[in-house]
C-alpha cells in the first residue's frame, strides 16, 4: 500500500481552507446541499467535522483506513451513513459525499507536486486509496443499516399479521394475510392455540382469503395447524377458499381430507353456530 509522504500531509494541512471550500463547491455542484432532506448548514457542519477528524488522522504510516488512528473518523462515517439511510438517501449519494473530496485533493497535489511526476503519481495513488477506503466503509455501513431496517420491518409485519379475533362465544377466527411460510405458520399456530386455551373455544376458523397462493408447502402448514388444533380438542374450519385456489389445490392433487373447508367466512360462521347449537333468526318487527 502506498503511504502518504510527510510533505503531502503538510501540504493538505496548510491548504485546508482552500480544499474545504472547493469540496463544498463540489458537493453543491453534484446536487448535495440543495437537497430538501439535508440543509446546506447540516452539510457544512458534516464537512467541517469530517475535515477536522480527517486531517488529524493523516499519517505516514500507510496502514489504510483500518488503522487505529482512523477509528474516530470511521465512527463518524458510520453515524453519517446511518443518518442518510433514515433520510432516504441512495447508496451512491452517500458515497459521493466522500468521493467528491478527491478532486480538490488531486488538484492540490497536481499544483504543488507537478514538477516531480513520480512523487505525484505515488501520492495521487495514496490519496485515492484512502478516499476509496473511507467511501467503501461508509457504503458498507449504509448497506448494513438498510438490512437492519428491513429486518425490523419483517419482524413487525410478523407481529401485525396474526390477529386472532373472537367471533362468538366459543368461536375464534384467524384472518390470514400474506404468504404463509414456516416461520409465520409457527407464530400463527402458537398464538391461535394459546387463544384456544385462554378462551376455551371449541371452534377455530382459519380464513385464507388474504393468502395469495397455495402450494404444497402452504397446504402442509395448514394441515399441521389443523391437526394441532384437533389435538387440543377443538375443531378447525378453513374458509375463504377462492376459485383459483380451489383449482390449484385440485391440480396439485393435494389431500385436504379430514379438513372442513368453506367458501367464505359467513358460511364457516354459520356452520360454527350450528355446531354450538345456536340458530340465527330474523327479528319480527
Amino acid at each position, binding site marked *: 500500500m502506498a503511504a502518504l509522504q510527510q510533505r503531502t500531509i503538510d501540504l493538505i494541512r496548510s491548504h485546508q481552507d482552500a480544499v474545504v471550500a472547493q469540496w463544498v463547491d463540489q458537493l453543491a455542484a453534484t446536487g448535495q446541499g440543495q437537497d430538501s432532506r439535508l440543509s446546506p448548514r447540516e452539510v457544512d457542519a458534516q464537512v467541517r467535522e469530517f475535515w477536522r477528524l480527517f486531517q488529524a488522522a493523516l499519517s505516514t504510516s500507510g496502514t489504510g483506513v483500518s488503522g487505529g488512528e482512523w477509528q474516530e473518523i470511521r465512527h463518524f462515517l458510520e453515524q453519517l451513513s446511518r443518518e442518510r439511510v433514515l433520510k432516504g438517501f441512495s447508496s451512491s449519494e452517500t458515497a459521493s459525499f466522500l468521493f467528491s473530496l478527491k478532486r480538490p485533493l488531486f488538484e492540490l497535489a497536481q499544483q504543488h507536486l507537478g514538477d516531480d511526476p513520480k512523487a505525484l503519481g505515488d501520492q495521487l495513488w495514496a490519496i485515492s486509496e484512502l478516499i476509496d477506503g473511507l467511501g467503501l466503509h461508509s457504503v458498507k455501513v449504509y448497506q448494513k443499516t438498510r438490512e437492519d431496517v428491513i429486518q425490523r420491518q419483517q419482524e413487525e409485519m410478523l407481529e401485525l399479521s396474526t390477529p386472532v379475533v373472537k367471533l362468538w362465544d366459543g368461536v375464534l377466527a384467524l384472518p390470514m394475510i400474506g404468504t404463509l411460510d414456516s416461520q409465520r405458520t*409457527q407464530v400463527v*399456530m*402458537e398464538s391461535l*392455540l*394459546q387463544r*384456544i*386455551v385462554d378462551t*376455551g*373455544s*371449541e371452534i377455530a376458523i382459519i380464513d385464507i382469503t388474504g393468502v395469495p397462493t397455495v402450494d404444497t408447502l402452504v397446504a402442509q402448514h395448514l394441515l*399441521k395447524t389443523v*391437526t*394441532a*388444533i*384437533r*389435538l*387440543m*380438542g*377443538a375443531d378447525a374450519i378453513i374458509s375463504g377458499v377462492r376459485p383459483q385456489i380451489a383449482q390449484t389445490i385440485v391440480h396439485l392433487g393435494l389431500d385436504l381430507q379430514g379438513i372442513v373447508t368453506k367458501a367464505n367466512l359467513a358460511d364457516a360462521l354459520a356452520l360454527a353456530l350450528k355446531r354450538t347449537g345456536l340458530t340465527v333468526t330474523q327479528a319480527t318487527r
Partner: protein
Amino acid sequence: MDRIPILQMGDLLLVTIQVDMHDQLALTLQDDLSERIQRTSARGVLIDISALDIVDSFIGRMISTISALASIMDARTVVVGMQPAVAITLVELGLTLTGVQTALNVERGMTLLQQRNDEDAP
C-alpha cells in the same frame, strides 16, 4: 416405584398425569390401565394431560397405544387439556394421533364420554 393413580367415576376411569412422564412410568400406566378396564368393565377412559409440558415420541405413541388398547376392550378414550406447545411438538414429530378423541378440558371430555355412553345404551 411411583405410579400414576387411576380414579374410577361410575363406569369411567380418570387418569391425571401430574408428573413428568418417563418411559417406565408410561409402560406401567399402560399395564395398570388395561388391567383396570378389565376389572371394572369401564366404558370410557379420560386422560388429562394439562400438566404435561414436555412430550417425546415415546409418550406420543403411548397415548395412541392406550387409546387403541382401550377401544379393543370396548372403552372409549378421550385425551383432554393438551398444551399448545405439546400439540405443536406432536405435529412436528408426525404423531397426529388419528383415532384418538380430544377435548379442551375435563368437563367437556366428560360430556363427550357421557354422550357416547347414552348413545350406546339400549
